[in-house]
């Protein structure tokens, strides 16, 4: 068993100092890093303008593969967006106190990921300015969207999730913005004063705030399970071999949580190191996240196996051909990257030593991120390229434009996250302090807060 050696904060004021220190003026290294990520975004913007000018012909999309990297990346980022709500809402309702240290970073990540995800269907439609056709609004032609279409369900699900995640993130942040307002002395004081909405931590404010957090958690829990289910129905309600299956909803939800937790680890490990937050983002947090990864990896691995089993057991030649194609066709490398990263790479986490080894967890999380992108790529690309009629089979290779926009999405995510680090506490200050007082009260025999 690994020894837990991180320093424990001694006073509540030290917790304030340690966590709010992250907000201090940035170093040149930090500025360079933000500029690098912003440059990636700039490249993506150029690629997007190029595509908007010339049309979708600049992508690799062609019959029969009309969904490619953009939809793959959309599903990937929606999946990443699941971790914040899982950690903040579901673990909150289960009273899993270890979430307190990681929930803020995960919530921020959720908001940024869902904002990026929401952009990809717009990029994918090519004529982005025609987006409003999806929105039900009274128009002179008397036309309405078809509410029986999973694509319209998706519009509502993603937007609901985006708005709810932003509200959840912001409500949780209000008390900490009040603490930041009382500490900083530069121009940000005015920003925090405005954003904290006059927060003073009075009894009335805590009473309504606690109830709001509880209700948002209760609302977000079924929402987070529904969002990726709805995304999975984009596929599962169509008659494409490899897509038309009832396990897609739980399979997608488990995959989303799997990839989301991995991304939390990917971004929080460098933050922990750079800002000396070892006393807050402790090894037991990584241990617990490792257990969640093991659970969801097992569900995902089971789903992979079950898809192949059902293809064989169904005796449906189209289904069997589709899955044979996945494993041994043109894109067999994508499938085996997916299986290696998502099923094999987490296996060492059965050992506590690996789960409490932060470097090991970080490397594993990166493998999972790669594997989960490829999972969606495999589902979309192999499904569409190899349907029923051999005369209609096709092939898909992503273009430079698509890959540039893919890389830019990571650049945008990292830009937003690094800027966020300097603008708001990356660890939920009041929640960490609440736990700290609770531990102290228990130690003093006063009984904890529940």
């Amino acid at each position, binding site marked *: 068993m690994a020894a837990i050696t991180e320093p424990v904060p001694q006073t509540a004021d030290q917790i304030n100092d340690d966590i709010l220190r992250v907000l201090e003026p940035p170093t040149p290294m930090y500025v360079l890093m933000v500029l690098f990520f912003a440059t990636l975004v700039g490249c993506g913007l150029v690629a997007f303008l190029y595509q908007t000018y010339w049309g979708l012909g600049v992508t690799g999309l062609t019959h029969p593969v009309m969904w490619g990297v953009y939809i793959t990346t959309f599903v990937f980022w929606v999946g990443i967006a699941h971790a914040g709500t899982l950690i903040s809402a579901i673990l909150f309702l289960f009273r899993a106190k270890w979430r307190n240290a990681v929930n803020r970073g995960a919530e921020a990540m959720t908001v940024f990921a869902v904002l990026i995800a929401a952009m990809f269907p717009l990029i994918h439609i090519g004529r982005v300015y025609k987006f409003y056709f999806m929105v039900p609004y009274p128009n002179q032609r008397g036309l*309405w969207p078809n509410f029986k279409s999973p694509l319209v369900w998706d519009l509502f699900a993603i937007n609901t999730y985006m708005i709810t995640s932003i509200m959840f993130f912001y409500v949780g942040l209000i008390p900490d913005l009040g603490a930041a307002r009382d500490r900083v002395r530069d121009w940000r004081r005015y920003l925090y004063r405005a954003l904290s909405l006059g*927060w003073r*931590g009075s009894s*009335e404010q805590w009473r309504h705030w606690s109830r709001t957090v509880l209700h948002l958690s209760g609302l977000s829990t079924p929402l987070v399970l529904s969002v990726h289910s709805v995304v999975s129905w984009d596929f599962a309600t169509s008659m494409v071999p490899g897509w038309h299956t009832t396990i897609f909803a739980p399979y997608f939800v488990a995959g989303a949580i799997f990839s989301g937790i991995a991304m939390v680890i990917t971004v929080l490990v460098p933050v922990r190191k750079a800002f000396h937050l070892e006393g807050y983002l402790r090894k037991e947090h990584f241990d617990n996240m490792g257990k969640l990864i093991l659970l969801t990896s097992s569900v995902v691995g089971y789903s992979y196996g079950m898809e192949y089993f059902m293809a064989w057991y169904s005796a449906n030649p189209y289904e069997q051909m589709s899955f044979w194609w996945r494993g041994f066709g043109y894109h067999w490398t994508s499938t085996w990257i997916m299986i290696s990263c998502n099923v094999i790479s987490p296996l060492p986490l059965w050992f506590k030593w690996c789960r409490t080894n932060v470097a090991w967890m970080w490397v594993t999380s990166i493998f999972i991120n790669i594997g989960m992108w490829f999972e969606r790529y495999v589902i979309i690309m192999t499904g569409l390229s190899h349907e029923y009629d051999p005369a209609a089979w096709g092939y898909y290779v992503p273009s430079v434009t698509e890959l540039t926009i893919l890389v830019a999405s990571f650049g945008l995510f990292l830009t937003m996250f690094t800027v966020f680090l300097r603008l708001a506490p990356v660890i939920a200050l009041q929640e960490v302090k*609440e736990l700290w007082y609770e531990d102290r009260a228990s130690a003093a025999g006063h009984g904890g*807060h529940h």
Partner: protein
Amino acid sequence: MAQVLGVLKTPHDLVAAIEQLKGAGFRDLEIYSPVPSHHIEEALDRGPSPIRLLTLIGCLTGVSFAYFMQIWVAYDWPLVIGGKPFASIVAYTIIGFEMNILLGGLFTVLGLMFFGMFMTRKGHDAYQPSFSGDTFGCVVACHGDQVPRAQELLRRVGSTEVRVVES
């Protein structure tokens, strides 16, 4: 009315202060805390937050509006498919559910803004920046002749600082 402020170090001390003050007949209390605490809420006994009603209203409004919108649209531009009914209630459950969550959440947050931010008790101006750090404040509003008693009670529960604040 005068206000007496006691500055305390722990939530436990604050709960003790609230109980002592209420026991002595002081009813107009305000507290400042850097952390939420159910013990403090229970000691103050202010009752359930009205926000729960707003959440319910939001959820019901969302789901009703979503079904109304979808059914109305189905009849406004009918899609005639094999003699099936125009409105497909089961398929509309998805958007009904999403709108239920969306408006439930929006009403909840608007409730927080209204009750928690704009309707908070005015007149208790004893807030100090350390209340978002590592201290807890307990403010008692009382008549001038009750001030010594309030000060004594606040000192007895371990206040590190007790002072009279002008209202």
